[in-house]
């Protein structure tokens, strides 16, 4: 087991106004690792994609709960988990393909591709009718002079 140095957990409604809140909250928590501007933007973008997926796909005609947990592991590893109890994804492999979307014209089908590109690890576990859990991980670079604790 890896050592968890810090952890936070929040629950919010699947309203699109909360997408902004979720990425800001994740970034504020990740800030203690002293990430570069680019690393922080990567985290914000990946979280935004995961949360938007919940808003658009997990709870398409209803408002449900989104659970977000962030952990910091020894070695400057940042982990973020976004979970919903919505509709679930029937075919995860298909959903992860670039440009594939069942969303409207405001969606590009690039969400999972962005999460994959901007984070080091991406795991998607989903069950139809039960919900989806997206877990992502990124190692934050340790900079000259050492990062803040």
């Amino acid at each position, binding site marked *: 087991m890896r050592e968890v140095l810090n952890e936070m957990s929040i629950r919010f409604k699947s309203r*699109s*106004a909360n*997408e*902004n809140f979720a*990425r800001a909250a994740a970034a504020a928590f990740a800030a203690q690792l002293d990430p570069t501007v*680019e690393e922080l*933007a990567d985290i*914000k*973008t990946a979280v*935004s*994609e995961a949360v*938007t997926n919940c*808003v*658009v796909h997990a709870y398409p005609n209803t408002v449900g709960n989104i659970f977000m947990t962030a952990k910091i592991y020894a070695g400057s590893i940042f982990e973020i988990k976004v979970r919903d109890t919505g509709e679930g994804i029937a075919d995860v492999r298909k959903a992860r393909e*670039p*440009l594939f979307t069942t969303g409207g*014209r*405001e*969606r*590009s089908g*690039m*969400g999972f*591709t*962005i999460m994959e*590109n*901007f984070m080091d690890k991406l795991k998607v576990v989903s069950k139809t009718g039960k919900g989806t859990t997206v877990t992502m991980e990124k190692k934050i670079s340790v900079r000259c002079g050492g990062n803040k604790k």
Partner: protein
Amino acid sequence: MKITHENKDGEMIIYLSGELGHHEALKVMHEMEDMVDFHSSLKLCLDMGDVNFMDSSGIAVAVNGHRMMAQRGGQFRIAHAQAHAMRVFDAAGISKTVKFF
């Protein structure tokens, strides 16, 4: 997200300011359509100089802008996209279709 516009030398310029995510994307698309229709513009520019965050919703906005202007026989371009926005656009390989300035 703040959206303003300017009709400059026959080109409709839409200035975006703030964060561009899913919550804002539809509003931007409607604004682009409304302005281009109202002014019968054949040139549309999306100025992203003041966009400080963008996710894949920005890709959808760009694709829609490009498609909308192509249907009207016009031109579409994106101006002043920041480094982070470009990384998102590049993930979709969109610079093959949309012009950036």
